[in-house]
């Protein structure tokens, strides 16, 4: 193979670089390959699936979808939480752009990966680093004709022109928010500046918006294949249901999310200084010269470390909500803090990494994105953290029992979605199926409804499944018991002990 010549001479050197740079990249969370559906071109290697594809699962249970590596672990910054901080005495190595390309291509054709996730320490200057990332992507796309997925980090402080050029080659870009509070960023990452993170985020957001205008609406519908007929027949009902949800939320005073917005503003101050340089002339010329290319078609994401700076879940969720609403984020990722540097000023977590908290945040994140929940509905100033024992949706449900029970055969989409144990897929199946006949518990179970959670909140044809009382303490106890499998998420499988309860004590 012609490709191999450049690296064949020095397998050991490549191996060393790969292991060191994989080790430094592993604390980055996102490894998703979703968000863009792109068929192959029939000549060159590569395609992208809208749903994303996992190629393996590492020993920590996290999916390996992309080749996640740093370009270099040399870094001029001294962030206290990071393995690659400049004051750490670790071996420093750098790839060349060609090496990254060859590794990506060869792994890809053996079907090990779905694409490349390229991040980097800051070598020389932000601009120089971003330039290297751009060069790598440019080679990969034009010389190696790679048509698979590429996720690349935006380097805070890099010039907007470079960010923009890179955006036309990547599928997804992300700029790390690092911490849920600006205070945390100041103390733990003294070299990073708030504005340098927010400005490229805004630039990418605007670029995506503009690119979609140029190419016509590039909505969720065209990216993920949905059966058209079902889609249109359901969309009217869903809109009606959504209006009802909005009415409910405005009656509760959470529709605008003012409280959460205030909390987010206090935590991060998400206003961007809009200077002319961040986007504008260069953006438009590039959009014209790259008329055939999309700008960051799979959207933008970001991530933050949780548990290092003593922030509350309410602050985190408020910041996430603000990022979704105001920066058009596709995803916000949370990573439970691991004290890799044994830094004494940072929490150590002797009992293990706070994985359950991370899990709860992801659950709530899905509620924000797909279930029509607002951060203010899930948490508040007086209840700033999630319940450890039951998931956020169950927690909301047992505190709002006046909304239940819900009749499966008549309830609208967003009402169904608020029932614990019913997800987007099963709710859609219920909507479709009940047009052809009444549904009973057996049928909805087969459609994917998790009855062990749902049964306390629903009726089918006016009857509940068992004679269970709609009573907060009783349901909470049952749900805590039902969630026991969540212990799977704890590393040793048994560090959390819940009181054993009988499965159904039919107290009325």
């Amino acid at each position, binding site marked *: 193979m012609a490709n191999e010549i450049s690296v064949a001479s020095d397998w050991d050197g490549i*191996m060393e670089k790969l292991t060191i740079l994989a080790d430094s990249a592993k604390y980055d969370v996102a490894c998703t390959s979703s968000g863009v559906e792109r068929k192959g071109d029939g000549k060159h290697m590569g395609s992208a699936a809208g749903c994303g594809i996992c190629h393996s699962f590492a020993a920590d249970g996290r999916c390996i979808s992309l080749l996640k590596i740093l370009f270099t672990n040399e870094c001029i910054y001294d962030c206290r939480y990071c393995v690659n901080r400049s004051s750490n005495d670790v071996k420093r190595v750098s790839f060349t752009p060609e090496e990254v390309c060859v590794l990506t291509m060869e792994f890809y054709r053996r079907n*090990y990966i779905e694409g490349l996730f390229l991040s980097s320490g800051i070598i020389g200057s932000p601009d120089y680093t971003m330039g290297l990332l751009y060069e790598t992507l440019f080679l990969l796309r034009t010389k190696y004709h790679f048509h698979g997925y590429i996720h690349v980090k935006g380097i805070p402080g890099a010039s907007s022109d470079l960010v923009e050029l890179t955006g036309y080659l990547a599928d997804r870009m992300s700029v790390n928010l690092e911490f849920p509070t600006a205070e945390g960023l100041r103390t733990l990452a003294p070299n990073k500046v708030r504005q340098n993170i927010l400005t490229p985020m805004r630039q990418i957001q605007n670029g995506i918006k503009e690119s979609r205008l140029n190419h016509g609406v590039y909505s969720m519908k065209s990216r993920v294949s949905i059966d058209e007929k079902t889609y249109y027949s359901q969309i009217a009902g869903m809109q009606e249901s959504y209006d009802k949800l909005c009415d409910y939320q405005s009656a509760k005073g959470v529709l605008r999310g003012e409280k959460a917005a205030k909390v987010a503003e206090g935590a991060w101050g998400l206003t961007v200084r809009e200077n002319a340089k961040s986007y504008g002339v260069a953006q438009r010329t590039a959009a014209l010269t790259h008329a055939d290319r999309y700008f960051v078609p799979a959207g933008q994401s970001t991530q933050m470390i949780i548990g290092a700076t003593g922030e509350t879940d309410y602050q985190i969720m408020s910041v996430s909500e603000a990022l979704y609403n105001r920066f058009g984020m596709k995803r916000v990722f949370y990573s439970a803090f691991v004290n890799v540097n044994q830094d004494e000023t940072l929490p150590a977590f002797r009992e293990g990494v706070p994985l359950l908290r991370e899990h709860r945040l992801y659950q709530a994140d899905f509620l924000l994105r797909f279930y029509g929940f607002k951060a203010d509905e899930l948490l508040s100033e007086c209840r700033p953290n999630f319940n450890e024992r039951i998931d956020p949706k169950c927690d909301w449900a047992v505190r709002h029992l006046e909304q239940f029970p819900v009749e499966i055969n008549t309830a609208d989409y967003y009402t169904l979605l608020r029932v614990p144990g019913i997800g987007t897929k099963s709710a859609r199946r219920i909507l479709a199926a009940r047009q052809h006949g009444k549904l009973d518990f057996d049928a909805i179970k087969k459609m994917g409804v998790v009855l062990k959670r749902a049964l306390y909140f629903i009726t089918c044809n006016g009857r509940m499944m068992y004679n269970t009382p709609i009573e907060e303490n009783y349901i909470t106890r049952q749900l805590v018991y039902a969630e026991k499998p969540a212990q799977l998420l704890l590393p040793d499988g048994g560090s959390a002990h819940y009181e054993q309860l009988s499965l159904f004590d039919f107290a009325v």
Partner: protein
Amino acid sequence: MNNYPSLILQCEDSIEGILTAIYDAFVEKNKMHSYQDGDISIAIGDNLNVNLFAREIQVKTDLEKAQKTLSTIQSRLSYRAYKNIMSALCHFSLDRGDAALGYLIKGFPMGAKVTEALSDPYVMRIMELSRKVDNEAHLFCGFVRFHDLGKFLYSEVEPKCNVLPQVMEYFEDRFPNEHYVIYDLRRKMALVHPAYKNSFFVYGDEWNVDVSKQQDHFETLWTEYFEHIAIKERKNPRCQRNLLPKWYRKNMVEFK
């Protein structure tokens, strides 16, 4: 499905075989004076369910009949229904022929709406079967591992369902410029793709190609990368097993 069948159609264990049997079943059904649910049953392969009161017919696989069944499904129902049935027929369960027949008997009067009528037991069964097959096929899109044999890429898989027909298009689209072979050890069936050409299947005995492997540096690199990308503090074998059950790992290079 409740009453005993009065007619059993015995067909070959292949998609074409079942489709032929479905064609014949409709011919027989039209001859009957009154048809009740479950009167005709399709027995797949050698699993003959000996029944004292049922008439048995051996169905000879006929590609023309199979093709007719398929085009009828596409024109009278919908592309989605066609996809669902094709997926369901790739499942290993023995009642997939009965389910498909029941689905079609229910479906032809209804038209495209049949995919939503999940309260019907046959429609639900087809949904379950196709969901299982589609999920497994989706996982294999990621879990297939190619070995570079120099002349072509070679992969061995042992799927529970017959996923090769399901993943064919996906790999063809992704690797148009590669010669590759995916070999299903369980069914002795190979998916062959010559570069820039259409894929095809090679069955059982016809497949004898030298697949001895030589050392591949990228395999070692990948295995090592796989070890290093995990965070030790978060080690969680149960979660890993949940997402990637052990039987999938048999032919994955990083687990050897």
